[in-house]
């Protein structure tokens, strides 16, 4: 499914004294299978943008198209397309409610009209994709760890078979282990399904290791759009709007500026954005000499 956002502008409380411009002239296109990270500090418009993409908010002006159809049309076609978007909210585990993990995930597909057996089948598949299998399916979702609960909630959305998956800060508030489990689940979703993914994140290390495109919002405007390498090469501009850059990139820039390196005539490429890339680059430079 192609997503096209065209000159999107949104004004909250238009005409009232506390009217505010939340989104200004945002345009971009995403093709099927792309993985974009959406970054920007709190209040930059990330949530407003997401809510427009699945029709929860209507633009003041501009359009959101899915496969060329305006999501805000009242046609059955637009309605069907909106259903192809799976939105995983922040802290989605607060929305778990069923007696068992499997029943919780089945709720969505059953609502779409699938039979009991069909719903169970797609739910088991979705749960396996996020790494929840075996006896855990019959456990109460409330007795799982934080990372597991969140993966169950993500499976609940995957079981609806979306073409575009939107993850709003999927790792917020988790411990390092839960965090790593979510990232693994997202990687598996990526490999096994040809889904487009938009991930909102404050964690630049996650963005650098997962996304193939980064959209930067500031004050309701889309101010940058490019590959992680291109975006994170603009560290000064990102810091100026209160964003961080990946730890690896930050370190490589510091290392490249060390006068002692220049004295030795060593030249280091500071483009690495993940720890794996930094490790490789440093070993390439120093390993042969050691």
């Amino acid at each position: 499914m192609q997503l096209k956002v065209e000159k999107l502008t949104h004004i909250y409380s238009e005409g009232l004294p506390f009217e505010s411009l939340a989104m200004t002239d945002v345009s971009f296109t995403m093709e099927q299978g792309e993985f974009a990270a959406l970054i920007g500090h709190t209040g930059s418009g990330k949530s407003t943008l997401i809510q427009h993409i699945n029709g929860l908010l209507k633009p003041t002006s501009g359009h959101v198209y899915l496969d060329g159809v305006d999501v805000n049309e009242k046609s059955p076609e637009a309605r069907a397309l909106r259903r192809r978007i799976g939105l995983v909210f922040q802290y989605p585990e607060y929305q778990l409610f069923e007696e068992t993990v499997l029943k919780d995930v089945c709720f969505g597909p059953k609502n779409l009209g699938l039979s009991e057996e069909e719903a169970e089948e797609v739910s088991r598949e979705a749960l396996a994709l996020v790494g929840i299998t075996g006896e855990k399916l019959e456990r109460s979702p409330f007795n799982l760890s934080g990372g597991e609960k969140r993966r169950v909630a993500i499976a609940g959305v995957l079981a609806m078979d979306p073409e575009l998956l939107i993850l709003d800060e999927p790792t917020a508030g988790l411990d390092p282990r839960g965090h790593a489990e979510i990232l693994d689940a997202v990687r598996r979703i990526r490999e096994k399904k040809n889904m487009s993914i938009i991930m909102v994140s404050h964690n630049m290390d996650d963005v650098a290791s997962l996304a193939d495109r980064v959209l930067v919002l500031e004050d309701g405007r889309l101010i940058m759009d490019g590959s992680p390498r291109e975006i994170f090469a603009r560290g000064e501009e990102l810091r100026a709007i209160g964003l961080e850059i990946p730890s690896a990139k930050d370190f490589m820039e510091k290392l490249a500026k060390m006068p002692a390196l220049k004295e030795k005539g060593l030249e280091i490429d500071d483009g690495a954005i993940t720890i794996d890339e930094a490790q490789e680059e440093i070993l390439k430079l120093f390993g042969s000499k050691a």
Partner: protein
Amino acid sequence: MESIISVKDLRFAYEDEEGELQTVLDGVSLEIEKGSFVAMVGPNGSGKSTLAKNLNALLLPQSGKVYADGMDTSDDSLLWEIRRSVGMVFQNPDNQLVSAVVEDDIAFGPENIGVPPEEIRQRVDSALEAVGMSRFAKQAPHMLSGGQKQRIAIAGVLAMQPDVMVFDEPTAMLDPRGRGEIMAIIEQLHDAGKTVILITHFMEEAARADRIIVLKDGKIAADGTPREIYSMSEQLHGMKLELPFAVELARRLRAGGLDLPADILSEEELAEALCSLK
């Protein structure tokens, strides 16, 4: 050394779903020095939060003893004085705010223990100032950002004038900006003489303490300065603990054959060490 918290052979177990006892703390003993800044780290289920809740009698030892500023936490008659002396800040700021106006929220604790009104005013003002939130005194807490709410929660604890402040993953739900704000306040409180105990999953935060205690399976697995602890990077990695970026990269580079010192703690140190390789 004058210790303000003293934990002696503390044991604690919870009952699980099937009614079986799960040991969470398995004989923990430690002393915390007055005025120090101690970080407690450990994987989930290591007992960090249970230990923290035992420090001000939110939980009581099933065996062993905990003394807060010399007071035995199992002595019922000392409960209020213990809670005043050892204040706690939790993960979710939304669960810690009770009033519709910021300054009322901060006055709530002192009012409850019968502090005279003039003094309450003073305490509220200085607590707000300490967390840099004076200009929000008349606002509604729900209109504030996560980091700001957490600052109000800290001010509420400060207004009780505690000797020890225990922070139980205070930044876990905040964005990087909020996280930075809270860490700056924690360091200021320590500089101003408070004893600070920080429970965290973030090793970069723990690196800012004077001392790190690593808990694993209900026992103390390591206890030392950040430099001592991070020089055990292979063991920490084995415990599935996240290492600060520079420590982790140095660990990988050593494994890749580079001759780097074992106690690298910061990016600056790693950069220096790389430059002095031949």
